[in-house]
């Protein structure tokens, strides 16, 4: 009743509608996560360079776009390689690529011209999340320096989280370390195990694969409402 009258702000949030999770394509990981990355929440994928973060995100995007969903890639460092995306199976017609400026601004530009390059990625993510209808939104902060990553404030993540709450959008961030904090519904930490080199060393060697480990660093579970008997 309070919600109908617009007085429900103080009440606990209503649970996210029952959307199917966004499958990553890694069977064991999907099984552990209950089907994939949660929709209506922020998931973060962290790990150092060459830990398989991009491969995991591309696999997620490939499955989403091949299902008919529209996805967005907010590229804070302008690092997307369309040829790799195509090879991963992403339907490029259904991917919106926002190429933010990769160049680091000088201190003069930041102080005098009041231009903050990280703001572009933040504003772009906010615009895309507000537009609605995107199945997956990826914010790639992978190549950003630590200083630039810290420019993302905690309230910005909370605002993004609220923009996608109760929608079927899975918002995924890709970075070197955890940035989202308490706004993250899921946090996956990736670490590289080893690279597969095929062929004979010194004569003909080919990079053929990458083995990595995924550690679920944080997973927010949905608490069942009190008073309801499970299995009813």
């Amino acid at each position, binding site marked *: 009743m309070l919600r109908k009258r617009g007085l429900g702000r103080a009440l606990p949030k209503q649970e996210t509608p029952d959307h199917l999770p966004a499958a990553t394509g890694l069977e064991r990981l999907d099984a552990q996560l209950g089907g994939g990355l949660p929709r209506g929440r922020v998931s973060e994928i962290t790990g150092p*360079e060459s830990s398989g973060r991009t491969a995991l995100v*591309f696999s997620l995007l490939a499955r989403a776009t*091949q299902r*008919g969903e529209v996805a967005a890639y907010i590229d804070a460092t302008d690092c997307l390689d369309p040829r790799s995306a195509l090879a991963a*199976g992403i339907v490029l017609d259904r991917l919106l690529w926002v*190429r933010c400026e*990769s160049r680091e601004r000088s201190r003069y530009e930041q102080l005098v011209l009041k231009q903050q390059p990280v703001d572009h990625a933040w504003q772009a993510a906010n615009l*895309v999340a507000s537009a609605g209808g995107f199945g997956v939104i990826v914010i790639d902060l992978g190549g950003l320096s630590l200083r630039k990553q810290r420019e993302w404030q905690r309230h910005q993540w909370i605002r993004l989280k609220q923009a996608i709450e109760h929608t079927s959008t899975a918002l995924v961030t890709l970075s070197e370390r955890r940035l989202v904090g308490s706004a993250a519904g899921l946090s996956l930490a990736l670490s590289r195990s080893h690279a597969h080199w095929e062929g004979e060393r010194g004569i003909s060697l080919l990079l053929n694969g990458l083995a990595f480990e995924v550690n679920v660093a944080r997973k927010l579970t949905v608490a069942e409402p009190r008073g309801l008997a499970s299995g009813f």
Partner: protein
Amino acid sequence: MQPLFAVMQIPDFAAAVLIRGKRHSGALAVSTGEAPNQFVFSANEPARKGRIHEGMPLAEARSRFSFHGGGELKVLERDPEAEQRSQKQLLDVAQSATPRFEDSAPGLILLDFTGLREPHASALHLFNGAQQLGFEPNIAVSQNRFVALCATRTRSGLTHIYPGQEAGFLTVQPLDVLPLDEAERETLSRWGIRTVGELAKLSEDDLVERFGERGARMARLAKGEETALLKAYENPPELEEKQDFDWEVGEIEPLSFALSGMLEKLSFKLESHSLAVAKLKTVLKLANGDSFERTLELSYPLTDPRTLLTLARLDLSAHPPGAGIVGAAVAVVPTERRRTQFSLFAPDLPSPEKLAVTLARLGGLVGEERVGMPVAPDTHRPGTAAVATFVTKTQTSALEPTQQVLSPAPRPMFRCFRPPWTAKVISRGETPVYLDTEPVSGPITTRSGPWRVCGDWWTQAPWQYQEWDVEVESRLYRLCYELSTGKWCVTGAYD
């Protein structure tokens, strides 16, 4: 109330337009195309008697006409614009006779006279109106539109086919008046059918058995029983709005106030004609006497004036005019509205209105050329990429299993460094052994290569690289050696 139709036809319309108001009794042909590949577009009756027909090369038509003793063939060049103007004038005449009429074809107008108190006076008014324009029209009035159409083809001047006379009129008409194709005409000719009356005597079931659905229509046409709906003509809406300002406008807010009114009017006009905006053109009259013009090509047909205003505002904010504004005009290019059958099972998609505004805002934020659909470049040059206009179909569906390209396990994907990292490399022979860049530095433990890539050798700026996949401190990079400059760089990482 019995229906009543009138048909107005201008015989040899293309020629009639060119000789309006002048009498010409000799053979006349209208040509089309560029010399020397000109063809006969239409020919009048004397020319047809001289074995000239439509589609014939003009040179052949001339020689054939003179060979058969027809003398000299008068040839005029077709003027499509004049035809359009004449058709518009004829439609105006038709509108003065009845509000319901159909623009059937060039030189052919079908009018609905149902309910008119004096249909004969209206037909005469129509006849006089066309004559005043310099045409010699054939006009026929009948309760059956097909009978009236046949009458204009076979009788000149003003004809009335009174109720009950339709079948009798059609009986004596040749088969040429029926819209038949060559194969049907030939079949009927083999059967010995020469007139519409003979065709009408045949059983409809037999005609259906031989010709299918067209046989049934053929029988209805021959008996004068064919009915069809009239496609009422509507004047195309004026899709331009202008406004002059009393004072010079230098900011976007007062300008958008004026644009808002104009867009609302245009949107209302379009909605009443079930159309949408495909292109939005804004022309601003500047205080220095110049004119500033912006054209927005929309990915989706839109009608919502607020969305259109937002798009126009964002565009003008990104490309401001260089001086104060003293007048504004908005014109739109219309298109068909979207017709979408949504599915309960298809995934959610962004609404076109929101997506258009979002794309415009993103374009203003990072640059229009940096937002869109990624395009795989047709080159192997490191770092190249492009975007194309992002257009989502209103209904997308999952790919067929045969089209799906999904690897069972993720492969390492490439991340480009734009611009590439400058690197110092210690090499042994041609083989790199130590990498030193700003973010990473260390011995190369594993390497694969060299892979030689080159391109643009057919231009003034050819390029040639040797690429290595290297592992440094448990990280995988692509190392490039530019052969022309002898410099090393890291173009990306595998992740």
